[in-house]
C-alpha cells in the first residue's frame, strides 16, 4: 500500500473542496437569485463535467495548461514554472471537474430560502454582504456541508482527469486511484487491494460521520 499516494489524494481533495466552496458560494448565490435571462448558459457550463467523460475534460485541461496553452503561459509568466504535471495543475483541473458537485447543492439550498427573510434583512438595514453572512449562509448550512462532502468525495476518487493532466509522478500527481490502477496493471493484486480497501473504509467513515451528525444533508436515503 502506498501511504504517499493516499496522503496526496487527501491533500488534493481537501484543497479542492475548500477552494471550491469559496468559489461556489458567490457563484451559487448569484445563480439562485439572478434574473439574468442567459443564466442557463452558465448553468450548462457548470454542469458540463457531469456528462463529459473525464478524459475529455482532462484533455482540454492538459492543452490549456501546456506550455502553449493559455493557463500554462499565464502560470509560467507568473511563477516561472510550467503548470502541467504539477500538483497545482491537478488542483486547477479538479476544480472544474468537481464544480457541479459543489455548486448544485448550494444553488438548491439558496433557492429554497424564503426570499422574504432576505427582504426583511434588507429592510432592517443590513447590507447585502451582511444578509448573506447572517441569514442566507446559516440557513443554507446543510447545502454547504453537502457541497463540501460531495466535492471532497468526488475529488478523492477521480482518475481520468488526473491521469490526463497529472500523469504519474510519485508524491506530486500520483493519487490513490492511479496507484491502484498501476498496481492492478502490474498484477500486484494484494497491494491494490490494501489501497482500495483503505479508500473504501475512509470514504465510508467520512460519510457516516457526516450523515450521523446531520440528517438534513442531501443523501440518497429518505429523511427520518
Amino acid at each position, binding site marked *: 500500500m502506498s501511504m504517499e499516494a493516499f496522503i496526496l489524494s487527501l491533500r488534493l481533495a481537501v484543497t479542492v473542496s475548500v477552494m471550491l466552496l469559496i468559489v461556489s458560494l458567490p457563484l451559487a448565490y448569484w445563480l439562485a437569485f439572478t434574473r439574468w435571462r442567459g443564466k442557463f448558459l452558465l448553468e450548462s457550463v457548470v454542469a458540463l463535467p457531469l456528462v463529459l467523460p473525464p478524459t475529455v475534460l482532462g484533455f482540454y485541461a492538459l492543452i490549456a495548461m501546456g506550455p502553449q496553452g493559455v493557463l500554462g503561459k499565464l502560470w509560467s509568466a507568473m511563477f516561472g514554472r510550467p503548470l502541467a504535471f504539477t500538483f497545482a495543475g491537478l488542483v486547477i483541473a479538479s476544480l472544474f471537474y468537481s464544480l457541479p458537485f459543489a455548486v448544485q447543492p448550494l444553488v438548491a439550498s439558496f433557492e429554497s430560502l*424564503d426570499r*422574504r*427573510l432576505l*427582504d*426583511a*434583512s*434588507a*429592510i*432592517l*438595514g*443590513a*447590507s447585502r454582504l*451582511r444578509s448573506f453572512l*447572517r*441569514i442566507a449562509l*446559516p*440557513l443554507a448550512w446543510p447545502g454547504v456541508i453537502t457541497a463540501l462532502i460531495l466535492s471532497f468525495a468526488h475529488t478523492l476518487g477521480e482518475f481520468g482527469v488526473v491521469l490526463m493532466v497529472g500523469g504519474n509522478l510519485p508524491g506530486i500527481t500520483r493519487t490513490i486511484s492511479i496507484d491502484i490502477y498501476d498496481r492492478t496493471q502490474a498484477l500486484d493484486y494484494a497491494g491494490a487491494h490494501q489501497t482500495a480497501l483503505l479508500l473504501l473504509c475512509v470514504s465510508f467513515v467520512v460519510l457516516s460521520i457526516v450523515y450521523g451528525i446531520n440528517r438534513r444533508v442531501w443523501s440518497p436515503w429518505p429523511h427520518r
Partner: protein
Amino acid sequence: MAAPLSAVTLSVDIRKRLSAFELRIQHEFAPGFTVVFGPSGAGKSTLLDCIAGLAKPDAGRIALGTSLFFDATQNISLPPQKRQIGYLFQSLALFPHLSVIENISYGLNAIPEEERRQRLDQVLQAFHIEKLGERKPAELSGGEKQRVALARSLVTQPRVLLLDEPLTGLDAGLRRAILEDQRAWNAERRIPILYVTHNRDEVDAIGEQLITMESGRLGKSGAPRSVLDAPQTVALAQAAGFENLLEARVQAIRQADGVMRVVLQDGGTELEVPLGSAQPGDRVKLAIRAGDILLAVEEPRGLSARNVVKGSVESIEARGALEVLRVKAGATFLVHVTPGALRSLQLEVGKPVWLVVKTHSCHLVTPQ
C-alpha cells in the same frame, strides 16, 4: 433615546405595469394609520414593496417629507437598506435560526451597545415579550410571533411603517391588544402607517382612515364605515362582507324621489334602490348585507321600508352565534338572524316569510 421624529407625510405617485393591470397610485399618506382595503390581487403588496424599495415602479416618485426614495426622472432609487422603513410581511419573516432577542436587535448593529440595550428593553416591554428573549421563532405562539415581528420592525425607529395583513389569523381580542400596543407606541412617534388588508374584521379593529384599492387603483377614502358601507365594486363588496350580490335590470327611474326600481334577473322580483348613474334597461349589480335584511313571518304593514318581498325558507345553517338562512324569494337571499329570533319566530325550512329591505341597504356596485 432619540428625539421623536417630526410628523412627515409619505407622498406616493407611481405607475407600475403588472401582469393583469397597471398599478397607478397617487396619494399622500399622513402620519397615523391608513388602512388600504381591497380584495386579494388588487396590488396592495406591490404598492408596499414599491414604497419599501423591494420592487421598482416604472415611473413616478416616492418621497417621505423632503427625503426622496424614488424618482424615475432623476433615476433615483434608494435601496431598501437606506430607506429606514419598517415592513411587516404577512409571513412575518422572523429569522428562524435566531432567538427573539437576536431577531429584534438584528437592525440595531450600527448602534452603540448602551443605546441598543435601552431600545431593546423598551420595545420588549412595550410589546410584553420580555420573557421570550432566548426562544426561537418556532417555539412561539402565533400572537407572540406577531408581537416579536412588530417589535423588530419598530425598534429601528422607522420613518414609515408598512403592515401587510400582519394580524390575519389572530382572534379578535389578541388583535385588539396588539393594535393597542402599536397605537401606544405610535402616539409619541407620529409616522405614516400603511395597514394593508382584505379582511373586514381587521378594518373594524383599527377603525381609522381607510382607502379602498382595486385593480391597482386607489378608490374612495374616508372613515371605514362610510367607505365600506357603500362599496362601489363587486370585488370590494365581497371583501367588505356583502353576502348578497344580485344581478338586476333597471326598470324605471324616479329622479324626484332619488330612487329607481330594478327587476332581479332571477325570478323577476322588483326592488326599490337608490338612484345610480344607470339608465332604464341597464344591467346593474346589487349588494345587500345578510344582516341588513329583516324577516317577518306575517305580511308586515305600515313600514317605512320600501321593499317587502314574499318568499320561503330554503335552508337554515347555524354558524356560531348566527343563523344563516337561505330564503327563496324569486332570487335566493342570504339572511342572518340570531338563534333567539329563529326560535321565537319558529322559523323552519319551507315556512313562508317576508323579507324587508330598506332602499338604502341596497348598494349598486359596478361589476369589474
